[in-house]
Structures are given as C-alpha cells and as structure tokens.
C-alpha cells in the first residue's frame, strides 16, 4: 500500500514533485529554537563579557535558558528525518561541502560549552549544596562537584577566568551557529526567496531580539511567580538591547526585500503576486507591522518619555511578546513561504499544516514549549535568581 502523502493545493504551474511539501512547520521551529539560544546567550555575554551590570538578575537565567533550548534544538530535525536512526551519518562521515553536515559539530560543541560555563557559574552553589545536603539530592550535587570543593579566592579567580573565556568563545559560537542556519537557506540557489546574501545576518539579528525578548518574558513571569518586585533597571537594559537590535533587524530585512524586488530577476512577478496575496497578512501585517514596527515604536516612545516603573515593565513585556511572535513569523515566512513559491517561478503552492501527526501543529507547539518545562525543572536544581544569589558571584567583575 502506498503511504499517505500530504499534497499541497497550487495555482499556476509547479513542478509535479513540488506538490508534496517537504519541509514542514518543524523546520520553521528549528531555526526559531536556535535563534532563542543565540539570543539568550547574548544576554548572558552582555553581562559576563561586556559588564552590563544591570543585566545581572537575568545572567544566570539566560545561561540556563540557552542550555534548555539548545538541548531541544535537534528534536524537530530528528522528527523530520526519514531515517532518524541514521542522523549521526552526517557527523561520522560529514560531507564537507554541505552546510548541514556542520550541524552536529556546531551543536555538540555549543552544548558542551554551555554545560561547562554553567558548571563554573554554579560551582559555588553546587559545593554549598553538596556540603549542606545529606539526602539523595546531596549525592547528586556531590557528584556534580567533580571532587572539587575549593572555594578559595584563588580558586574563584580561576573560575572567573574560565567563565570569561567561555563567554567570549560562546559569542562567536552561538552567533556562528545561528548565522550558519541562515546560510543553509541563503546559500540555496534553487529558490529566489531564500537565495539572499543577507539571509545569515537577518537570521542572526532576529535571533538576538527573540532571545532577549524571551528573557524579558521569563524574567517578568518568574518575578510574578516568585512574588518579588521586578528589577526595572534590568528590564530597561533588556529593552535597550531589543531596541538597538530590532532596528538593525528591520533594516536588514527591508534591504533584502528591496534588493529582491529591485533586481527583479526571473520569477519576481510570482514573488510580488505572493507577497501581495497570500503573504500579505503573515509577512507585512503580522511579522513586520504588528511584530516588529509596533514594538520598535513603543520601545522608542518609552525610551524617549523615560517611562519607568510598572508602566515600563508592562510595556516592555508586551513588546517582548510581540517580538517573539514576529520572529516566529519570520521563520515561518522564510521556511514555509520559500516553498510556497514554486521553483518554476510560475506558480504558488499552499501549505496545509496538519494538526496531528509527527510533523503537525501540536508537535511543533510541544517542541517549542518543552524547553520551558526543562527550564522550570533546572531552575529548581540550579536557582538562577540573583536576589538569592548566595549561589555565585563568579561571573561578576
């Protein structure tokens, strides 16, 4: 019996094999997750490397968030593969001309880096717990000390050096990982919608704003849950970061689109028909209008007016939610949008996202939210809260 294939409706002329949509919503979730990783790590680095003291309340949270999301990054890919059990073929025998072959190396290096940096950052906390607790959890922490209980000034200075070095290495690693995701699309010459030299940078900047926005939401939510006051200075610091990077993100994407239209190569008519038709709402209204321009204007207004206190927290949180939504729409419009424009340049397809199934909406939503569940569990084991921060000052200067 032939397997069931999901056939996409189309208009105009499309190649027969294109009528089956090959990259589903999961492939949009994948760059979204890596983007959040890179963005969250940026926040951690702004504190650890660049000394943005006001970001201290979220520095450890950023590191944990980055790790939790990174652990889930391969899952949408694995679920998508026809033979997930062969996934390591690309790492064991990487085909060096393939951008995708680098993924295993980038990802494992980065996970190792995050774990190592996390270990150094949490070492004082781990040692304290290992010495204090006598229960099963105590054993767990004793195991994590790796036999090192030395918290002397000399030892802490050594740790700080490592944290600094790892954070410095982590910046190009995180951004390289995400820029490379952009390259995977931008380097394909088969699709005009993807084949932009600006794609890696666009991915990178949208990644940064999404990660910072995620931290705003997580930080404010955690303060509410823990019933402690929100540190407005920290939120303002994050707001500045979003504001600075969102400007670049908007400009880059606008430039890429302008280039595409201005060059007007073969197939541009179909692209114009697409962006003014099926993509009008997802692209111009949701991604740009509501998701990017609105938070940019709102943040500009708040910065200009010097908004403070609760109004600032509420305003920035709203902006952050919009940015998170915008960046997801950007991933969607690139991955799904690119495939909705036929390679023939003479037809359009329409992706029908299934609700159930291995590559359905429910799985996509679950995979996007699963890192948050892991984060919740990890914050129990390794509290990232700076207000209780007996845990460590290892990263401070």
């Amino acid at each position, binding site marked *: 019996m032939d397997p069931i294939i999901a056939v996409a409706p189309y208009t105009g002329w499309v190649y027969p094999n294109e009528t089956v949509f090959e990259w589903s919503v999961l492939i949009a979730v994948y760059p979204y997750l890596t983007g959040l990783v890179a963005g969250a790590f940026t926040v951690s680095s702004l504190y650890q490397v660049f000394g943005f003291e006001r970001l201290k309340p979220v520095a450890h949270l950023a590191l944990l968030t980055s790790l939790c999301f990174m652990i889930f990054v391969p899952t949408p890919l694995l679920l998508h593969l*026809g033979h997930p059990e062969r996934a390591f*073929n690309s790492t064991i025998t990487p085909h060096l001309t393939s951008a995708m072959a680098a993924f295993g190396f980038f990802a494992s290096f980065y996970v190792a880096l995050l774990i190592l940096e996390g270990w150094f950052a949490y070492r004082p906390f781990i040692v304290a717990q290992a010495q204090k607790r006598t229960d099963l959890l105590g054993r767990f922490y004793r195991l994590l000390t790796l036999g090192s209980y030395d918290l002397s000034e000399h030892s802490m200075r050594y740790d700080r050096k490592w944290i600094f070095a790892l954070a410095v290495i982590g910046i190009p690693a995180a951004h390289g990982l995400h820029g490379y995701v952009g390259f995977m699309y931008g380097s*394909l010459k*088969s699709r005009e919608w993807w084949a932009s030299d600006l794609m890696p940078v666009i991915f990178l900047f949208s990644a940064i704003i999404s990660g910072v926005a995620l931290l705003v939401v997580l930080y404010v939510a955690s303060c509410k849950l823990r019933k402690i006051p929100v540190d407005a200075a920290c939120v303002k610091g994050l707001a500045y970061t979003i504001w600075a990077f969102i400007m670049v993100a908007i400009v880059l994407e606008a430039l890429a689109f302008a280039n595409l239209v201005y060059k007007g190569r073969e197939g541009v008519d179909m692209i114009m028909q697409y962006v003014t038709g099926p993509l009008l709402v997802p692209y111009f209204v949701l991604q740009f209008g509501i998701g990017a321009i609105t938070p940019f204007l709102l943040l500009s207004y708040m910065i200009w007016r010097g908004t403070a206190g609760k109004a600032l927290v509420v305003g920035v949180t709203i902006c952050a939610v919009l940015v998170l939504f915008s960046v997801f729409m950007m991933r969607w419009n690139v991955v799904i949008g690119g495939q909705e424009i036929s390679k*023939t340049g003479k037809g359009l397809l329409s992706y029908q996202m299934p609700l159930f199934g291995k590559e359905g909406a429910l799985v996509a939503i679950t995979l996007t939210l699963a890192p948050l569940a892991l984060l919740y569990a990890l914050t129990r084991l390794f509290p990232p809260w700076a207000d209780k921060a007996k845990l460590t000052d290892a990263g401070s200067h």
Partner: protein
Amino acid sequence: MKEESKLSLEARRAFLGKLGLAATCTGAALGVGALGTIQTATAKSEPAASGARSGTAAEGGSFPTPDYDWTQHQWAFGVDATKCIGCLRCVEACKLENNVPRNAHQFRTWVERYVYLDGEQSARIDSQQDPVNIEASGSEKEFRFANRYKDAKVDKAFFVPKLCNHCTHPACVQVCPTGATYRTKDGVVLIDHEYCIGCRYCVQACPYGARYFDEERGVSDKCTWCYHRITKGLQPACVEVCPVGARVFGDTRDKQSPISLFIRNNRVQVLRPESGNAPNVFYVGIDKEVN
C-alpha cells in the same frame, strides 16, 4: 542503425570484459602471482573493486555488473522536444521500471505541455499530474494529457520531457550532509538509499524539481538514467519505450553514439544554465518559457 551498432559494441565490450575476468580467475586458480593478478583484474572494474574493499552500497552493492568499467564511459541524455507527442509512455515505463510510487505527485521523469493560445502572451503549462489530466486518465497510475484545448484557438504548442539533469556540478550533491548522493565517474548522480538520512535538503536544492521524497522508504529518490540498465549495455526505460525517438541516450566518449551525434548535429541547450549546475541533459526545440 546507429543504435544497433552501439548495442553490439556494448555487447562486444561486455564479452571482452568477461573474457578478461575468466582469464584472471584461471590465473588465480593456477596460483601464479595470485594476489597481484586479482588486483590487476578487479581494477578493470573499479566500482566493484572499491566495493570489495569497503563494502558500502555506494561503491559496491549498487554495482551488480562486475564487467562494467565506469571510467570508460561518460553518459549524457538528449531530448528532442520537437518530436515528443506527449504520449507519456516514458512516465509510465519509468514508474514500473524503477518502483516509483504509483501516484500523481512523485516522478523520476515527467512531460510538460506548453500551449500558447491565440492572443495570450505566456504559455499555459501543465503536466500529467494536473487534476484535469488525472481525471482524463481516470487513475493516478496511468497518465494522459486531457484534450483540454480542443475548443480553443492554439497558436503554438509543444511537449517537453523532463528528468534529472545529472549535472556536472550538482547542487543536490553539494548540500547532501552525508554524501549519500554522489556523482559517479561515468557522470550519473545516484543516491545510496542505505545511507540517506532523509533530510530532504537535496530536494530543496535541486532547481529543476527532479527529486522527491519516498515516504515509504524514508529516503530521497530521483532518476538514475536507469543505471541498472545502462551498466548492462541497455537503454534507460524511458528511451526504450519512446515511440518517436524524442529521448536519446548514450556515451559521449563514443563519437558515433546517438548522444554524441545528437549533440554534434543540433544546436542544443540546457535548462537554467545560469545556475552553474552544468546539466547533462541536452535539449533541442524548447522555447523561452521552458526552465
């Protein structure tokens, strides 16, 4: 006539190959410099030799023809669109020959129909998978072009057979993360179905839409120019069944092969030359809108 001479040449080569192998085996049995002799003899058929070394399907398992030397051929394909009548026998033969899923969405080869109606600036294009054509054929397992323009005034119309271009610089091979898809020494782009992880990056990278994903096997698939046939001196199935000779196949190393003559005697062109892929399917009689 030329076709026949080519086939007889292939047969002769095959015979000589077998003769060589037999001689080698005798030599080995006699135990005269056994190791050296075997190495010399198997080197004649390099893929089989490398297969024996590594045992991978890419080099050995997919190569069931021991007396075939892939360094001695350079295959190419020709399409004379002026001859194609859109009968779609090629499409059906390909599906049967290569176990291509029997549906209207996955093809190793397909035929496009271009119709310019009176007063219209651009062509109306469809292929056998179009719902109107499927309705006309009555099944997703058989194909025919519906006579949908019978009441219209047609200015110009033609058919264009399509298939994998077996490019010299294939984008699909470039992006494959495992090297499961590769270009053989005789110029054919193949997929090792035992090694493909099913990421479908190659499907995305092909500018010609030549690849599809086989859900049942969890791997990418595409035209192989019937590699299992051509290495035995046969023609690809689509070439074999074409009733009008619109499809031409052969070895460009042989100056008298059908494809060499086709390329020499015609002004040929390739699809999307700007892609830099350097296709090896050469077209005659296609129009500006064909890509």
